């Protein structure tokens, strides 16, 4: 019956006043991201402190939004920065253009650039969104909680349980 169905709806909405809201209050509670979440880039170093990046610009070539700029320079015995012949003198990523596709990560032959989990990237100025090499090499200031890697480190969780 239509009128009674309508009244039932009123009952449902009234009951929900007394339930706990399911809202996650974001700045206080940060929802853990999945381990493969593609966030802000990082430039990695070898264990001995040398940079992995050799300035080959393959990442810049692979970038669909053309937001990576690499200027390479030769390593010298007095000034050795990376493990290879050359190193990235300038390495900039314009994060206001980046679409976080991860192609740079795939293109890199030395795993020098990887995508981290940080997603809180807002700035007051567009210039601040151009991340320089120092910023990319440094550890992120804001920490993002990450889901259990053992449970979720595959795109399809069902694979985890079945394998």
């Amino acid at each position: 019956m239509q009128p009674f169905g309508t009244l039932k709806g009123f009952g449902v909405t009234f009951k929900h006043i007394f339930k706990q809201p399911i809202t996650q209050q974001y700045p206080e509670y940060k929802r853990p991201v999945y381990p493969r979440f593609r966030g802000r880039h990082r430039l990695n170093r070898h264990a001995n402190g040398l940079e992995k990046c050799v300035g080959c610009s393959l990442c810049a070539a692979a970038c669909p939004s053309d937001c990576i700029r690499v200027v390479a320079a030769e390593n010298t015995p007095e000034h050795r920065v990376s493990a290879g012949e050359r190193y990235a003198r300038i390495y900039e990523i314009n994060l206001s253009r980046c679409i976080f596709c991860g192609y740079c990560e795939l293109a890199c032959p030395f795993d020098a650039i990887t995508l981290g989990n940080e997603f809180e990237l807002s700035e007051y100025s567009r210039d601040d969104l151009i991340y320089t090499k120092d910023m990319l090499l440094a550890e992120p200031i804001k920490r993002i909680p990450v889901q259990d890697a053992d449970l979720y480190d595959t795109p399809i969780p069902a694979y985890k349980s079945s394998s």
Partner: protein
Amino acid sequence: MSWLVVGSGSSGEPWWISLIKAVIVINLVLFGFAYLTLIERKVMGRMQLRYGPNRVGPFGTLQPIADLVKLIRKESFFPAAAIDVLYILGPFLAAFTAMTTFSVIPWGPGWTIGGYEVTGYVADVPIALLLIFAIGSLGIYGFIIGGWASDSKFALLGSMRTCAQLVSYEVSLALSVLGVVIMAKSLSLVDIVAEQGADIWYVIPQIVGFAIFILAGTAETARAPFDLPEAEQELVAGYHTEYGGMRFGLYSMSEYINLITLSGLAVTLFLGGWHGPWLPGPVWFVIKLAVILFVFIWMRTTLPRLRYDQLMRFGWKVLLPLATVNAVLTAILVVWI
């Protein structure tokens, strides 16, 4: 014009007391509007398992003030094709008429303060009920003018819908209160409240009238499930699509104040006005007002929007005959019993 003079009738209070009361009531109504928006968002949020605004001030209590500051500081642009005078006049007309109508609603028994007799209403007009409907109909011009003058198809469609809906439901609304008028034998809201204080609340003998009044009132204030004039999915925002800043704020304000006035009218006509045990009159008035407003918010959360033909069918084929039968039956019973 003697029937329109403020403070006329039996009360012998000086004109400046009426003026002070008018200022107080206007400000209280504006305050009520500001916090009604907050309460509506809060209650709707809780009903939808959300928190609602809770960032500005403790529990979001300063949210209306933040909204107001935002609206006032916005650039008051208008479309190049808009007709300037009418475009600016629209929201003012709507807000003015909305604020005027609350003046005839009684909220207290009247007191003697410092030797002066102070009545519990701003104006006791013998035809108060007619006045409310008349000014409310004038307020529709604000919506129509604004929608038409902004020269936008969405605004025009919105104001057309507003016009059609408000005209259709005004008939049922006026007929639904006819039973109360017949029982109280007066159009003055002060007399109607006094009758209810002496007798029973009219919600009991006029339960059908009360239901029709609430439903038609929901349509009259263009609130869900009858919010077709501003159906966001089809019309962007209805007649105020092209409005921004405080001009939009005035439209929004007039809608909410119309809602408050309508709830006040429902309290006055059906729920005994300010009458109630133990507590003083104005407190009872506010409590009853809050209950009615809560019902409106509750209805908005629960029911989905009607289709346009459903709306028209409901108004003309269900509410209007019911209201007519109710009025006729009341008249017959009052005369014969």
